[in-house]
């Protein structure tokens, strides 16, 4: 119990200190652009529950989940293909290095030109940003599978889908998870960027609209929503990771204790 409390204290300690400091430092602030935290907190419920949740938060989340899901699925699929095939890897690796070096936000105007300003473009923006860490980490993971395990599969004639599912993907999963975690934060950023240009709804759009309409406390509250979203998704990710990689952490711990 004390350990749980201690961990919660470590986790929440600094944010709480910062918020309290902000609360008192900004109390009575007359600056139009830096309203008191109290004001921001007061407008928060009215701004983000009810109609706006449905009209802006929900569409953003849907786009994020579809975009992130596609980025992960495509990244893994292409990564397995490239990682398992030495010739293909030699062929596409320079190209991948070039493509990943392009900052994805630069591609947003181009995508809008080609695909318009609808939902598909906004999802595509997320995919283009999020796919790289998944793809590159999957390639590395698949390339680094253990040779003795590969021989074991060969000699027991474990092939095809069974081999992919029970050997390749599982062996690469620690690295795939690293990529997927990076992709998650990038996807949130790309979601907002996609909504800054030529959008009519969404979290990013709403924050910019508030700023343009000089609704400064509401704008700040939007920034809070995005931060909270990031934290919640990261927590959810950690829960999934613990399940998927429990074997990995167990094996690592056994190795360290000199088993």
């Amino acid at each position: 119990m004390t350990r749980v409390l201690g961990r919660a204290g470590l986790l929440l300690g600094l944010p709480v200190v910062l918020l309290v400091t902000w609360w008192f430092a900004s109390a009575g602030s007359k600056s139009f652009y830096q309203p008191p935290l109290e004001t921001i907190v007061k407008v928060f419920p009215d701004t983000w529950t009810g109609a706006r949740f449905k009209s802006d938060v929900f569409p953003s989340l849907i786009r994020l989940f579809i975009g992130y899901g596609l980025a992960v699925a495509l990244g893994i699929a292409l990564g397995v293909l490239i990682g398992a095939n030495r010739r293909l890897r030699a062929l596409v690796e320079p190209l991948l290095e070039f493509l990943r070096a392009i900052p994805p936000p630069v591609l947003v105007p181009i995508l809008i030109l080609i695909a318009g300003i609808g939902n598909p473009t906004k999802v595509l923006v997320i995919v283009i940003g999020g796919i790289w860490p998944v793809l590159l980490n999957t390639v590395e993971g698949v390339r680094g599978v253990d040779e003795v395990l590969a021989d074991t599969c060969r000699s027991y004639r474990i092939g095809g889908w069974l081999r992919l599912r029970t050997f390749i993907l599982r062996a690469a999963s620690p690295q795939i998870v690293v990529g997927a975690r990076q992709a998650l934060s990038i996807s949130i950023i790309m979601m907002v960027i996609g909504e800054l240009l030529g959008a009519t709804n969404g979290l990013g759009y709403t924050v910019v609209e508030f700023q343009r309409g000089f609704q400064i406390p509401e704008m700040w509250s939007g920034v809070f929503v995005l931060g909270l979203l990031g934290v919640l998704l990261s927590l959810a990710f950690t829960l999934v990771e613990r399940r998927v990689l429990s074997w990995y952490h167990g094996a690592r711990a056994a190795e360290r204790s000199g088993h």
Partner: protein
Amino acid sequence: MLEINALRKVYGGHGRQVEALGDITLTVEDGQFVCVVGPSGCGKTTLLRCLGGLLAPTSGEVKVAGQTVTGPPDGLAIVFQEYGRSLFPWLRVAENIELPLKSKGVGRAERRKLVSESLSAVGLGDAGKAYPWQLSGGMQQRVAIARAIAFQPKVMLMDEPFAAVDAQTRADLEDLVRTVWQRFGMTMLFVTHDIDEAVYLGERVVMLSSSPTHVLESLDIDLSAERDQLKTRSEARFVELRSHVYARIQEAKGAAAR
């Protein structure tokens, strides 16, 4: 059961050619237990990989049950030296044993039966739910042996399977392998660098030269079928056979050094 004809393997690359296997000819009868010993670096593992269809020979051929080996043959199982790396760490012990059976197309009920039978055959009846990394090294190698048993192979290849376990565990595992062989009657090819182990386990010991490797001698081990760590190892005949094999291997090493 296992025929090796003029097997040769040359590793090429970077302008340097290494002749690992020179010329190996060897026949193992159905159900025989043959141990292969040789000085270190004599290409024992290369030989085993060629037999298992994991490596293509440069020339010569390997036949398992009359069929020329071009890839991993039917009814052949390999137990690797690196037990820690040959079990899938994300699968539980029972799932590890079950996986090759799934791929073989064995039905669920039959799979379950084979898994529990093979686990109890290696003395790990209640370890099915554990993960491999929760077990000691010796127990992990038992799991690998159980997986090979459950596969019901006609030929079992073992690549220095006990090189990485401690002496106590090693003696237990040696007896286990004898018991398994007597009970299931598969053809057994056991590669080791340990002369005592080879003489203790085998019905026949095949001695290899240094590389480029060929067969130095094939020696029948005329000890009784019931072997015991203490009694057998102290028998005069055991000591005699052991000394003979030792002398031949030393000779081979000397020849390589000259």
